[in-house]
Structure formats: C-alpha cells, structure tokens
C-alpha cells in the first residue's frame, strides 16, 4: 500500500475490507466504513454485531486479520499500538464507564490532558495556568465544577459517563469514539448528553455507538447499522429504521 506521503482518501477515518475472527468466530466481516472530517455518525446494531470490536480495531486494541484502517488518509492504524493511536488524536469512551475511581475528578481530567506523557515529563511536571484553565473549562462543560475535589468513585453512574466524556475533551482528540454514552442515564441526562455531543461535534469528528433509538434520533445524524460484523444499512435514521433487514435483525416488528 502506497500511502506514505499522499492522502489515500479525504476521509478522517477509512475502514476497508476489515476482517477479524476470534477462534473461528467472524466478529468483523468485510467491514468498510468512512467518516468525513467534522462528521458525527451513530452506529447501531444488535449485540454481537461487532460495534465494540470495531472500536477496538480503530484504537489498536485488536489487530485486524485483513483490511486497512486509515486515519487522516495517511496513517495506517493497524501498525500502531494504543498509546501511539491516542497520541495521534483518537479518544475513546468505553461502554462501561471507566474513570480512575480512587482519584479526584480534577486529577482524572489532569491525567487526560494531552500534554507531555513521557515518564520524565510527568515526574518533573508542574502545573501551569493554561492547564488549570483547560480543566476549569471542561469541568464547566460537564457540570462537575462543584464536585471537582470529590473522588471519581463517588459519582453516580451518569456523572461518571460525563466525566469520561470530559476526559475525552481534555484529551482534545480529532476523533472521538463514544461507546454507549447514555446507558443507565435518566431521560433528562440523555437529552443533555445529546446536546453535549452536538456541541462537541461543532469542532470534532464523533462516532457514537448507542442502542437508545430516541437518543440516536435526537442526534439527527447519519446512522450506520452493523450486523454480524458488516454494514447492513446506512443513511438517515428514517431510512435505516424503515429498512426491512434492519427491522428484522435489530429493531423488531
């Protein structure tokens, strides 16, 4: 593949013919998907459709058996590890909220800031005003300013989800992969999260995996439905939800 200098594609994220199997189970089957810069995409699909595995591939946790995964048109993500991919500007929120429970909310955000992550840099780190301001701003966005000194482990489930989105913001990535951001949230929180993601999307490219169809509808973006590791349907929420196959395998009649 000759992709060293010239962009192979204008897409920010480009997956082509990706295959992954675990012990003979084809988790991802000839998956092709492109995400344009600045786009927000919702990914839906039944359990086991390969949504999380796809995120694992993009973030370097799982290596595909076949196929190419390009970031920004030039970087082959399949050759890089998680740390390198994170440094390139791909941030990820996990399905189960994963925050550093025994540390304060502030420290969670401080750790996520995209500053020098080397051993030496962190050993001799001294806080700067710019960093403090960035943390303050993120705290405001995720509405946890008053709780900043509390331990992350003491937050409610919904707040943890928000903190994790806040950590993504602190990371300041080009592409955010958000896995089930509203699982376990109340209706109000779900609505607020949709607003928050739309706000974030003004500057960044976002990929959201979610089961909650009300939420997906609220986002009002292009939807991709995965099934058995491949793209089943793609289009507006109305197109996808009226697709016969999608109704059959996922939405139910």
């Amino acid at each position, binding site marked *: 593949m000759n992709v060293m200098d010239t962009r192979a594609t204008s897409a920010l994220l480009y997956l082509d013919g990706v295959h992954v199997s675990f012990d003979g189970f084809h988790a991802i089957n000839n998956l092709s998907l492109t995400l344009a810069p600045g786009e927000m995409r919702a990914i839906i699909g039944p359990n086991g459709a390969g949504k999380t595995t796809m995120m694992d591939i993009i973030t370097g946790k799982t290596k595909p058996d076949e196929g190419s995964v390009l970031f920004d048109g030039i970087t082959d993500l399949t050759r890089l590890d998680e740390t390198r991919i*994170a440094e390139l500007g791909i941030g990820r929120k996990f399905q189960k909220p994963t925050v*550093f*429970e*025994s540390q304060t909310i502030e420290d969670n955000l401080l750790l996520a800031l*995209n500053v020098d992550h080397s051993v030496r840099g962190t*050993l001799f*780190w001294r806080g700067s005003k710019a960093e403090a301001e960035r943390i303050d701003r993120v705290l405001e966005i995720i509405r946890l300013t008053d709780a900043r000194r509390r331990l992350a482990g003491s937050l409610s489930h919904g707040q943890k989800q928000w903190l994790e989105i806040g950590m993504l913001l602190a990371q300041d990535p080009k592409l955010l992969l958000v896995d089930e951001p509203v699982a376990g949230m109340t209706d109000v929180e779900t609505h607020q999260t949709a607003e928050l993601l739309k706000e974030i999307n003004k500057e960044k490219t976002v990929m959201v995996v979610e089961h909650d169809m009300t939420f997906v509808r609220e986002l009002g973006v292009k939807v991709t439905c995965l099934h058995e590791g491949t793209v089943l349907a793609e289009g507006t929420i109305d197109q996808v939800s009226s697709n016969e196959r999608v109704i059959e395998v996922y939405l139910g009649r």
Partner: protein
Amino acid sequence: MTPHVLTRSLDRGATIFVLVVAACGVLIPLSNLLLPAGSLFQVPTYLVALWGKYVCYAILALSIDLIWGYCGILSLGHGAFFALGGYAMGMYLMRQIGARGVYGNPNLPDFMVFLNWQKLPWYWSGFDMFWFAALMVIVVPGLLAFCFGWFAFRSRVTGVYLSIITQAMTYALLLGFFRNDFGFGGNNGLTDFKDILGFNVQADGTRAALFALSCLGLIIAFLICRAVVTSKLGKVLIAIRDAESRTRFIGYRVESYKLFVFTLSACMAGVAGALYVPQVGIINPSEFAPGNSIEAVIWVAVGGRGTLAGAALGAIVVNYAKTFFTSGPLAPYWLFMLGALFILVTLLLPKGIVGTFSAWWGPFKERRLLAADAASAAREDGVSEPNPAE
C-alpha cells in the same frame, strides 16, 4: 524545583515519619555509645544490630509498596534484588579481609582457596574498592530489574502471571548462587567479615554508625518514594493500577512507567540489602528463597498497602513479632502465625494498620476541612450580598 518537591512530598504524616526515624537514628546510637552499659536507657549493642536489620527490612518494604501499592505490580521476587545488593556489599567485605582469612591468601577469599581456584574470577574485580561496590549495589539489581521488566512489561505480563515469574526469577537465582562454581561461596555464602572502610564491623561504634546510616537510608528512600508518588507520575501510576487499559487509551506508555518504577524499586531493595549485610555479618543463597520475598509482601499488607509509612511500620512490627515469638516456646508455630496474620489482615484490615487508621481519621479531617470551607464561603457571601435564605 527542590523546595517545591519538598513541600509537596512532606505532608503532616510524612513529616512525622521522617522526624521519628531521624530521632531513632540519632538517639539509639548515642544511647548505645554514651550511656554506661546496664543503665536503664542504654540500648545494648545486640539490639542496635537487631533493630538495624529491621530498618533495612523497612527499606525493602518501601520498595515493594512503591510498585505494589501504587502501581499494582505484585512482585514476589523482590528478595532477589535485596540479596543481590547484599552480595555486592558482601563481595567488598570479603575483599577487605585480605590476608587475614584462614588460609592467609591475600588475593583470594577463603572459599576460593578451598576450591583450589588459582585466581580471582573477572566479575570479582573492582570489588576491593568501596565506591565500585557501592555502585554495583545499585546497578546490578537495577539492571536485572530493567531487563526483566523490559521483557515482562512489553509482553504485557500482568497480575498473577507476573508474580509467578518473579518467583521463578528469585528461585533461579537461589539455585545459581547455591552452586560453588558460580563463584559466590555456594551454600555458605559470604561471611567472616572483618572491616568496612577500615572500621571493625564488630565494634560498637561501627554498629551504631551502620544503624544511623540505615535510618538515613530509610529517610532518603522514603523521600524518594514520596517525591515519586506525589508527582504527576504518581497519579499516572495509580491510574495504571486502577485501570491499565484506560491509561493506555489516554496515551500513556504504560510499560515505560512500570519499567521506571520497577527499576527504581529494585535499586532501593539493593541498597537495603547492602546495609543489611554488614549488620548481620553474612549473606548466603537463602536470602533468595521465595519465602523471604513473600514474607516481605506480608509486611506491606500488614502495615498498609499504598501508604509508604505503613509499609515501613509493617516491616518493623512483623519482624519484631517474629523475633519475639521465634525466641520463645512458640517458635515452631511462627510460620502458622505469619500465615494466620496474612489471612486475618486481608479479611479484617484490608487496608492494613495505617490504611485503616487514615480511613478512620480521614472523614473526621474532611469534615473539619469542609466546615472551614463553608465558614469562609459564608463570609464571602456575606460581603457580596445578603443571603436570600435569611
């Protein structure tokens, strides 16, 4: 830089710890040397040596707490780094014997003469110089830890698998050092030391000085650990301990952090071993025994994992108990007691002595802080606008 690090590292608990160790390091040797023997406050020499041993164990416990308590790396082979530091010091002490050995050979330690060796093996060269031996005390354990960690952490060996291979490492070294042709005195190890830097190792003054140095070593090791864990790097270590893959996805190279802290910890364990050997007068392969490393982990668990001061305290408390019980009629049951202690601490005091104490003291302190916060907030509100609730 330095004052900043100091104020950050020395909170109240840490200051108390440093002051207590410093006081012991000064008062115990002085009482031993200056007060007349038999006086109530005179610490007999045998106790100075015994306590000196505990202090070295406390340094080893600190080194284990740094990796286990803060980074979640459970090493069950840390005794190996302690023993290697001890051997490096032992080699220096052997070379100091010179012609005063049983065979009177000025160039070869007794055990080599006994084995009919004609000349000193190459890896013994340089150990007649103290500075070289002192350097090796840090370099050899550090290098082994670096190589071991390089492979283990890059291959992402974690949890119980890592613990098992650290056990295997120390066991392999145990078997190696047992062999006579390894060149470290085989079964008997290194002993019959005469002097260190020209001072008789048996003399009261030397023992008192070694005790004071061990306390100084404990303070320095403690301050290094505190500086590390209170830095941003310390936060990253805790993040790795609690959610390793999350830390990777934020963009931290987890293996580099583990490698750094594991190597630092091994160097500290090496220094502990080097201070230990002249005080106990012998180093032999039994120091590599896997059981020793496990015992050291128990000290940390008893004192309180992730508290540093607790680890040091645990080492001293458990070893004091060991001395107490193994010298009485309960001696045959000591290992059962140690096992029971580990189980009871895990069940009843999972945070250890210090961890439990701070969990009990913490909410009280926090309430006081919150009350102070509320009071100052109320004052500010009062200045700006009248409280609408009133």
